[in-house]
């Protein structure tokens, strides 16, 4: 990358100014995006983000500064000096010095795999793709119409160069593509409506988008919306069995397990914004789900939206087991929380840009598969139940214990068979009840892409979440 010499200079200058640790990260992002709204190209454009972020430890306190004017060394020097000065000034409000766990010092370069650079693809081709998808949609059938159709296509390359005062050097290049849409359908007879959101995202080049078959994906969603509006009935009340699709096991793995496993939340660092956690160190080893529940977070999944091989502290990424057969097994750590808890970082520290501090983030969080060969086998002994394929609304309290998942595509299960669609079944359930109710999962795991928000200023991280279909025994739908 251009300006790599300034990264090294920033580290050297920070040490000269009295910092005990300096980490400088140069980031360049180039990309383009298109917004198609109701068949009209609302806007297109490209973007470039480029700059340097510097994080320091001084007298046990942490400072961070960023700059995007890299025209002279003086500008970098000023920024680094500011970071050191701010950290030093804040050390009077530190009771315990911040320290980092030890880490193997690496000097590496890696790339996310791709065949066709997203920036080499003409924007006209990308525009045509969105228009083709929009034309695919039957927006005005006999009884359902779809006046509101938003489609957003984002493709970008992210390049980083990280240097730490301990000697780590990590160069990375990761291309990513992301498609999101929101279609809103109305029943012409009663004017009732439903939303159908779609999110697809991967690391990789344009070949990934070619492989998605967006027309089919969008067309399927539209068919589902129409079916729910035409045929959807009230879901059954009372205590029943419920099967959740990978879309919901995935979001639950993310919200009910991944977030409360973030060690910075557990230690209270996110207390004022994203919140804290119902989990704590003392609960490690305790059962919080059935033995059918194993949840991991793995940044190294090739092609995943949350892909990376080294985090933004230079720590090698690996699979992290959070729940193992129902037992709360581990947290997501950066070097600060790992030191505090007497362990090693497991490489979860990520930053959304050069101008953001690295914080603990999930990457690709998912529930491991079970041993049921098919959905049919999973539901065959259910007398009365509901299969919730996907969700529209969701939320969870800031300790990540009280969750709600409002179903979009859902079907009644009657004597082991799928019957008619049911509208908006709501699973409002605690985390331990949710994971404790699962007594079987299918063998196939599917993933969805998402944008995870955390920290302050809010940082948006690309992630996957996923899982198999899972069967919950004896739950009550709202």
């Amino acid at each position: 990358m251009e300006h790599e010499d300034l990264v090294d200079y920033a580290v050297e200058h920070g040490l000269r100014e009295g910092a005990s640790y300096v980490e400088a990260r140069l980031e360049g992002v180039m990309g383009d995006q298109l917004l198609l709204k109701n068949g009209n190209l609302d806007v297109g454009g490209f973007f470039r983000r480029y700059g340097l972020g510097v994080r320091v430890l001084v007298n046990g306190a942490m400072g961070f500064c960023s700059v995007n004017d890299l025209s002279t060394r003086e500008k970098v020097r000023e920024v680094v000096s500011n970071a050191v000065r701010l950290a030093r000034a804040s050390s009077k409000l530190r009771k315990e010095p911040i320290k980092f766990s030890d880490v193997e010092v690496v000097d590496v370069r890696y790339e996310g795999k791709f065949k066709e650079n997203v920036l080499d693809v003409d924007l006209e081709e990308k525009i045509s793709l969105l228009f083709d998808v929009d034309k695919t949609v039957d927006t005005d059938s006999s009884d359902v119409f779809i006046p509101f159709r938003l489609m957003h296509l984002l493709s970008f390359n992210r390049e980083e160069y990280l240097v730490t005062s301990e000697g780590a050097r990590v160069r990375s290049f990761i291309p990513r593509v992301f498609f999101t849409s929101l279609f809103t359908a109305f029943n012409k007879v009663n004017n009732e409506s439903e939303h159908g959101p779609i999110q697809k995202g991967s690391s990789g080049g344009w070949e990934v988008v070619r492989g998605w078959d967006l027309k089919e994906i969008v067309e399927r969603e539209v068919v589902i919306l129409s079916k729910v509006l035409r045929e959807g009935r009230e879901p059954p009340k009372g205590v029943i069995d419920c099967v959740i699709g990978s879309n919901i096991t995935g979001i639950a793995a993310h919200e009910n397990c991944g977030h409360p496993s973030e060690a910075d939340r557990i230690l209270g660092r996110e207390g004022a914004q994203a919140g804290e956690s119902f989990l704590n160190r003392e609960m490690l080893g305790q059962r919080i789900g059935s033995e059918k529940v194993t949840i991991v977070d793995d940044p190294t999944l090739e092609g995943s939206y949350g892909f990376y091989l080294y985090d933004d502290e230079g720590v090698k990424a690996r699979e992290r087991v959070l729940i193992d057969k129902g037992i709360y097994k581990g947290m997501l750590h950066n070097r600060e929380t790992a030191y505090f808890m007497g362990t090693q970082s497991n490489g979860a520290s990520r930053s959304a840009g050069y101008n953001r501090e690295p914080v603990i983030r999930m990457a690709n969080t998912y529930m491991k598969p079970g041993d049921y060969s098919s959905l049919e086998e999973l539901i065959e002994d259910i007398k009365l139940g509901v299969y919730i394929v996907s969700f529209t609304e969701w939320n969870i309290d800031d300790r990540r214990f009280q969750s709600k998942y409002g179903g979009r595509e859902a079907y009644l299960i009657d004597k082991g068979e799928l019957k008619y669609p049911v509208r908006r079944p709501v699973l409002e359930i605690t985390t331990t009840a949710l994971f404790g109710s699962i007594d079987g999962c299918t063998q196939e795991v599917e993933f969805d892409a998402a944008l995870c928000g955390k920290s302050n200023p809010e940082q948006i991280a690309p992630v996957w979440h996923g899982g198999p279909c899972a069967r919950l025994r004896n739950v009550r739908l709202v």
Partner: protein
Amino acid sequence: MTFGNDFEASSFSFSGLDVSELLKDIVSFCVKTAEDGDVDDVVVMGESYKNNQVRFAGNEVSIVKQWNGLKLQVFVSCGRKIAMTQIDQTEKDVVRSTVEKLVVLCKTMKENEGYFGIAEGPFSYDPIPKTFDTKICNLGEKAIDFVEGGINSAVGEGAKRAAGVFYFGERYYFIQTNRGVEKGTGGTFLRFTIRAFVDELSSGQGISVSRCLADFDAEKAGSEAGHIAKLGVNSEEAKPGQYDLLLNPTVGATFLGATVVAANPFWIESGLSWLGGKVGEKIGSEKITAYDDGRLENGLKSMIFDDEGAPTQKTTIIEKGILKGFIHNTSTAKRYNVETTGNAGIISPQPSNIVFEPGDYSFEELLNETGNNPMLYITSTRYTRFMNRVEGTFSSIPRDGMFLIKNGELWKPVRGLRVSDNILSIFKNTIALSKERQQIKWWEVTTPIVSPFFLVRDCNLSKPTK
């Protein structure tokens, strides 16, 4: 040199640099480069900033940050074809090549049938009081003292620990278009959010935001957070059902403010608003009057011009419960046969400051307005999500102190409930507003909202069934 929030800008100091000249020069260079490419409309908004943040948790500082930067937002149109980019460098070669690339890209776009140009200048702009305070520019390391003051106040009320964030900074803008606009402005801000804890389940939140130091009170926010946290000790699990809700300004800004923010044509055309086709209808209690005010004194988003360079203004959205209209940029105004309200966003209009007119109740009087349902006082909420934005069906999770009210007093702290209702029903079922108001902006409320306390009848609250 003049300050206030309005400068003609020959020179002013910003981190020791002559940024205004740099900003003006680079913005003008962008406009000229675009015009050389034979575009029809061009808008360039340059922003230079020096923002600072102190994050704290466990009564100690977690990290201190500073951001210095400059960015350019460039918009061009060729006929109805439009394109945008953001440039974060000032080197002229980079700027020139980026703008030239944007112009080429614009010509390859398809026409946007909803685009109807940008604001035709020139305009005159009046300064807005209380939007710039040099004391904030010079705050520096004294910011740590404000954090310490907030934490100590929370602890003084009985909290064991506090976490939060203190933002402050200065921002300068220069806009130039090929439609007669060429203007600079600047402003400062302070935003403090603190959450105090007595134990894991007993917490409270306080907020103080301002454009000038005189109206900022971190200690008061800390006291409020600590006080609520202390009152919330030994909370009990509450039962789901129908309640009357007393919402403090933070929660009122979330639930009631959402409807005013949704008065946006882009949202309506995208299926993201429950207000489509409702102009002229009574959508809420006649107690509610609310407006968007881009010129609000001390308003966090007050600025003399919008993203097209049009002067900002005060626009009534709700008058005595009746939806009067939407915020607009030039294009949405043309589509709705009205005038721009000075709320560009060029693609989507953007709200500025939302202001609710005050009611005539004191907090104590609101506590005594008992109805048929149990009354619940909610002091904070988060994770507000919609099942259906066209209908307004939503839920949100109260956090921090939540209290059952009995005999005009906070009777019992409770926990474990979720507001699961319709956002328009809450608007309709509001029966009383307080005289007291507070400007709110925090993680959950991204548009600044001047909000009173609200009393809302007949709200549905749910909780996990297992």
